[in-house]
């Protein structure tokens, strides 16, 4: 894991001092809310329906146990004893007092954490594959690349007042576990002639105009990555639309210019930017990469697992994934208990996960974009003990990637932009499908809910997506089918007229019944949908 050196510490401390000063000036009335807003946003502080919300960055989703415990401590001391893990691999606190924000940031800084650039029209926290460093299918660990980008983008003087927010994801496997092509820049580390480089996909995004990022450059060598990114951003900063907030994301610029013209402009800018000497030497990458060296795992650790406890066996089959080192496994902890709030965890649960990571996972945890937690480096021999501890804490729901493993945005329960509530719908769906055998029969089924068109809950990328809309003053839900945020990326299509809260649950049941009737051997829900198209599903829903 990356450890701060004196420079990183100094930067974060300077930021805490700066923000404390800004809060002081705001509380003293020296600056207006309008002037304060972009400043607090760059420090992750939103004003929501009931209170301030603080979003804390978890760079590329990686944490150690000390940091995880700090998240529990903050929930306990400054919030209502829980935190909410988000689709951007961050954590949010919903009930923060403005006066407390500087103290919270100071506490975070003591464990090398911050809330820098978790909101605002700047380059946001870089996200990545939650199985980085552990996945059997990766060509390298993507996190050193992400860390290089994190440092470059932190306090970037030219790109802190972009037309709109800017999100970057980095992966290094063909299986995309980070919705890479739905980011403003999605980077896949690829290999060419035995050398690693970055493939740049630019101009993806969700929101009201979802787009899949086109490939802009297939191979950028490591030593050019930052200057190339700088050129991509400069073209956007200069020519991205600023007249309409809904057309301000880079996806609109690239859509309007066309990928070829955008690429041409970037190449032209890059020819110039490359000459400025802003790319660090590979020695800096090596310094960072050394800190992500794989933990010393014993490849001769026993491979067999005692499956005699049937409940454990169910969890093992659903939530545990293959590790690249024999005798080891990746544990996925579901934060989606039936009837719970997707992504929420109590302080006690966060502490417990920290303890397990310290004892059994080489002190590492990950946050996933599906709002779950991962213990990446676990000995198979320890799985049963871990499961028992998780089970006792309500953290062993065996539903990874099943229909009840729902992504849901905060919705009308917290969010001032919402049209409809997301959380109660998620709870009702999970309850309707609570029979685990039924869920397993349905197989991989990614269900994603947003409370409005901003799409924080990734509904466009759900195999089944739900979008809350406002229909004549009442909450109404549209249903989308056929999206995916994975390597088979696609955008969902709206089925037709929307539903009320109970109606949407019924409609999903009709859709899943139809799938069971139509599917052929080995087909996931989304495969069947792609094969047979919308018509049979529409028929099943609306008759």
């Amino acid at each position: 894991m990356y450890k701060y050196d004196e420079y990183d510490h100094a930067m974060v401390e300077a930021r805490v001092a700066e923000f404390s000063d800004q809060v002081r000036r705001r509380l003293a009335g020296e600056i207006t809310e309008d002037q304060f807003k972009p400043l607090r946003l760059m420090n992750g502080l939103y004003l929501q329906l009931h209170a301030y919300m603080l979003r804390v960055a978890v760079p590329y989703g990686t944490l150690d146990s000390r940091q995880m415990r700090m998240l529990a401590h903050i929930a306990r001391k400054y919030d209502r004893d829980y935190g909410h893990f988000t689709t951007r691999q961050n954590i949010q606190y919903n009930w923060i007092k403005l006066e407390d924000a500087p103290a919270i940031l100071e506490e975070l800084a003591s464990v090398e954490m911050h809330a820098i650039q978790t909101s605002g029209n700047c380059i946001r926290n870089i996200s990545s594959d939650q199985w980085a460093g552990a996945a059997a299918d990766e060509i390298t660990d993507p996190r050193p690349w992400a860390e290089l980008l994190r440092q470059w983008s932190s306090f970037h003087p030219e790109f802190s007042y972009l037309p709109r927010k800017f999100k970057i994801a980095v992966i290094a496997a063909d299986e995309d576990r980070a919705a890479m092509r739905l980011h403003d820049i999605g980077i896949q580390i690829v290999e060419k002639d035995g050398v690693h480089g970055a493939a740049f996909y630019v101009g993806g995004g969700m929101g009201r105009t979802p787009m899949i990022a086109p490939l802009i450059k297939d191979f950028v060598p490591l030593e050019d990555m930052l200057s190339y990114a700088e050129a991509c951003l400069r073209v956007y900063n200069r020519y991205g639309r600023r007249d309409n907030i809904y057309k301000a994301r880079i996806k609109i610029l690239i859509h309007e210019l066309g990928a070829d013209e955008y690429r041409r402009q970037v190449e032209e800018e890059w020819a110039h930017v490359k000459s400025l000497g802003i790319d660090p030497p590979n020695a800096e990458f090596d310094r960072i990469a050394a800190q992500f060296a794989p933990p010393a795992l014993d490849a001769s650790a026993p491979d067999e697992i005692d499956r005699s406890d049937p409940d454990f066996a169910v969890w093992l089959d659903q939530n545990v994934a293959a590790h690249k080192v024999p005798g080891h496994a990746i544990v996925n902890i579901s934060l989606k208990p039936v009837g719970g709030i997707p992504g929420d965890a109590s302080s006690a649960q966060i502490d417990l996960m920290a303890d397990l990571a310290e004892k059994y996972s080489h002190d590492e945890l990950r946050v996933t974009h599906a709002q779950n937690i991962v213990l990446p480096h676990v000995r198979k021999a320890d799985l049963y003990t871990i499961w028992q501890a998780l089970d006792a804490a309500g953290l062993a729901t065996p539903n990874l990637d099943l229909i009840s493993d729902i992504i849901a945005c905060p919705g009308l329960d917290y969010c001032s932009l919402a049209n409809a509530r997301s959380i109660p719908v998620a709870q009702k769906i999970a309850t309707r499908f609570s029979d685990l055998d039924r869920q397993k029969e349905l197989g991989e089924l990614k269900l994603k809910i947003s409370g409005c068109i901003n799409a924080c809950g990734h509904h466009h990328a759900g195999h089944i997506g739900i979008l809350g809309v406002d229909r004549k003053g009442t909450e109404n839900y549209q249903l989308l089918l056929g999206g995916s945020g994975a390597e088979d990326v696609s955008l969902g299509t709206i089925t037709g007229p929307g539903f009320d809260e109970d109606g949407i649950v019924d409609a999903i049941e009709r859709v899943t019944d139809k799938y069971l009737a139509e599917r052929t051997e080995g087909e996931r829900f989304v495969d069947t949908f792609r094969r047979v198209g919308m018509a049979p599903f529409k028929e099943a829903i609306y008759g």
Partner: protein
Amino acid sequence: MTDTALQSGEEPCVTLDAFLSQSNATAVRLEPDEDARALIPHLDRLALIEVAFPKFRDGRGYSSARILREAGYTGELRAQGDVLVDQIAYMKRCGFDTFAPEKALNPADVEAALSRWPEHYQGAADGAVPIWKLRHG
């Protein structure tokens, strides 16, 4: 910080169009949507380029400033308009050396803002040595 009023004897800025179509003016004003690169052939006869920030949220002027400095411009580069204390450190890094805020800034806050950052992660137009270079000598 230089002061915000016109210095005595200072030539007023002309618009980019006026500058390009005539003139022997030595001071020009660049609006956010105007291409800084249009000035590149003329940099050696310019003494002042004023970059407009009608709204602090409009960050195009940061790129304009860097482009001008990267092209070798050494004259005065002034940020004018909705220029707030919380933006000036970034502006300075992008190459601005003077500020003409619409609303006067508190000098103590300016001082604090400009001395806030011990080092910088990335290279920009202010000549600061980026942290990666400090790390590797």
